[in-house]
């Protein structure tokens, strides 16, 4: 499916989300309130299992700290149709949490542990949410913009 067509279909399916054409792929942005209480899993399940989309390959999952809020960014691709899309969810900065995708895409398990480690986003329903890169007793989440470590960080 081409990007334009995909854009139309997505608009049809998610009328309340903000959808726009990004640099490469259609971008679907949800506010956190729209996908709270397990609704996010439904959205992703729809994207994965609807015959027109079949987004079965989560090839990149990351997070961006925008100081006022976090953006979870999911890059999805369909290995059958070879179309891709970007799924974004805005999370609040104080208590960021979102449904874990580890049962939809198994690869999310490791990625979510990494994001939890470096951004401090809590994934509800994750089977084993603990730090993966840093030690268990580490304080803070280094990839946040407000993270400051006067001892270990070298300022150039």
């Amino acid at each position: 499916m081409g990007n334009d067509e995909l854009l139309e279909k997505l608009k049809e399916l998610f009328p309340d989300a903000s959808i726009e054409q990004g640099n490469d792929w259609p971008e679907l942005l949800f506010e956190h309130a729209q996908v709270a209480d397990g609704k996010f899993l439904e959205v992703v399940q729809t994207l994965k299992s609807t015959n027109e989309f079949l987004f079965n390959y989560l090839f990149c999952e990351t997070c961006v700290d925008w100081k006022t809020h976090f953006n979870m960014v999911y890059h999805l691709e369909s290995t059958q149709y070879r179309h891709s899309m970007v799924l974004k969810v805005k999370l609040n900065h104080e208590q960021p949490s979102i449904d874990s995708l580890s049962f939809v895409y198994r690869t999310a398990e490791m990625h979510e542990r990494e994001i939890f480690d470096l951004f401090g986003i809590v994934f509800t329903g994750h089977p084993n949410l603990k730090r993966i890169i840093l030690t268990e007793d580490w304080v803070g989440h280094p990839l946040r913009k407000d993270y400051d470590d006067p001892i270990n960080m070298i300022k150039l």
Partner: protein
Amino acid sequence: MIEEITTAKEGEMVINIGPQHPSTHGVLHLLITLDGETIKKLEPNLGYIHRSIEKMCESLSYRQFIYSTSRMDYLSAHINNHACAMAVEKAMEIEVPERAEYIRVILDELTRIASHQLWWGAMAMDLGALSPFFYAFREREVITDIMEETCGARLTMNYMVPGGVMTDIHPNFVKHVKDFIVQFKSKIDEYDTLVTDNIIFQNRMKNVGLLSAEDAISYGTSGPTARGSGVSCDIRKTHPYSLYSKLQFEEVIETGCDSFSRYLVRVKEMKQSVKIIEQLIDNIPEGDFVAKTKAVIKLPKGEFYSRAETARGELGVYIVSEGGTTPYRIKFRSPGFSNLSALNHMVKGYKIGDLVAIMGTLDLVIPDIDR
């Protein structure tokens, strides 16, 4: 599913594989629970070589950050640099000169061959055959010499710059690459005689570490790991970049889903890479080797994603720009990290010896996983 390994049940034994272990090829730490010799659970523990490249890149300019990506997957340094350069070029809408594209693709493929050769030797070594390692390094040495001659370094080249390549190719480049191809073709049969056809090797590899196509996609594996499970995922074919849409080559796909298929994919990929180089080496066009760019690169506001096929799989470079001279956030989607996530699924029920073989066929590069 990675379950928490805290206490072993009756008759089970928890073993630390790594962080210093001969077959993890670096500082990977795996906690495995054994029942006798059979693996029940595996949990990777990362971070021993985490250099926070993503955080570092937030304070580096768009010319500077490329060098640090050579240190991620150091065996396909050129391809990492290429992906980063492409992301910047895409954002800046820089037209890369034809000559630069040719040089880039040739070097990419040479890197891929070198990487696969090292993997081949190292994997044979994991299985206990030590000689193939040296044979592999003999051919790889020729490639590193070519890299040294043209790029100035043997492993972390930092040769790609936004808009092209750093310097023009060395006058002897074409000749030496051709010499390499001749030598490589005469020696590639040895690889099969020594390892591929060996009955012990085949028994160690076949029907071990099964990863079905569905799981391969679900676990986000890419590169030879996924192609060994019959998933078409070669970025060079599915989302062609650079010159790849014009080139004649096959995407190697094996449907065995086991370690042996993954092994075959890599061995065959080496031959395909040689085929690609042969198509390009004789007709490198004249012209500029780098496009004119401003001294200080400022990316427009927005998000840019570029994908490239490294020797291990799909590398994604995700740049979030605020319009300044440094990226606001950069994310490297490294192939090793996703491939590693499938390891727990693959080794369950196999022996320790198989764990080594499976890890060998995943071709893990630890700095790539940790970044």
